[in-house]
């Protein structure tokens, strides 16, 4: 039996089904792209791309993914892994908030390796996410983040900004291709069919 059906594989497949919509990739792509363009042009309006990424992600999951794939409630083990990701991401956000607060309040950060902290921490968070969420594309995005954060420390702008723009374009393109493929593979189900789901053979 174990040769025929690997239950962990079946569970992983059920979990990763939701990463086929490309929305994570589009979100990350727009986030990196917005940050890179802002650094290059010093135009704050490019942060709107980051906001667009967030909106596309939330609305896309609600109106594109959920109606096509339906909802799955995962096992306690899977939920525990997701909670680890949440804790790690929260930890990274707290570190970021502390550094930001120190910078804003005029604390002396000269000599502090702030850039290197981010260059290690952010890709590290993505690697943990990739592992705990079985989301292999995040490993690739962790490398992209490492490239542009390390570039920022070694070369500064505009080289780092360009690295970030390219790091944004790659996931964005991947995301768009995946989204188109997703829409073709999983057509929307009409409400009448949804309402009759599981009614076969009943009066």
């Amino acid at each position, binding site marked *: *039996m*174990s*040769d*025929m*059906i690997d*239950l*962990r594989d*079946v*569970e992983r*497949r*059920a979990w990763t*089904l939701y990463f086929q919509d490309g929305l994570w990739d589009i979100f990350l792509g727009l986030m990196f792209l917005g940050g890179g363009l802002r650094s290059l042009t010093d135009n704050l309006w490019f942060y709107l791309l980051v906001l667009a990424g967030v909106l596309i992600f939330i609305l896309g999951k609600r109106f594109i993914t*959920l*109606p*096509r*794939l*339906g*909802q*799955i*409630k*995962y*096992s306690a083990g*899977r939920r525990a892994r997701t909670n680890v990701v949440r804790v790690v991401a929260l930890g990274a956000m707290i570190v970021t908030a502390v550094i930001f607060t120190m910078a804003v309040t005029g604390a002396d950060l000269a000599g502090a390796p702030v850039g290197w902290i981010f260059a290690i921490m952010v890709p590290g968070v993505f690697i943990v996410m990739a592992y705990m969420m079985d989301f292999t594309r995040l490993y690739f995005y962790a490398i992209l983040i490492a490239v542009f954060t390390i570039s920022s420390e070694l070369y500064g702008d505009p080289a780092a900004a360009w690295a970030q723009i390219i790091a944004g374009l790659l996931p964005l393109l991947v995301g768009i291709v995946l989204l188109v493929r997703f829409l073709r593979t*999983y057509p929307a*189900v009409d*409400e009448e*069919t*949804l*309402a*009759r*789901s*599981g*009614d*076969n*053979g*009943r009066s």
Partner: protein
Amino acid sequence: MAAADAEPEELHPLAGLDRVIHSPARLMVMTNLYVVESAEFIALMNLTGLSWGNLSTHLSKLEEAGYVELEKGFRGKKPYTMVRLTGEGRAAFKAYKEQMQGVLAELPD
């Protein structure tokens, strides 16, 4: 004990398999439901590759056997059907899995 007096199940371990589960389509449904808490009908369609009608038919059989339960609801104005294994269904799948493992382990290479 003479061979003729032996119980058929002793001679044919496969004959004792749960026939409700032992169909490729229902096995797929049960397997997918076993690894999660519950799944929406459409999600099961996507995971198993079964058509709407096929899945409905097999779910009816599993529901008759008491292995799954269906719960209908609305998300906003959209209807949905959640499917989950019952305790009995989970136990039956576990027993089936162990029985199959035993049968396959006894097969010669």
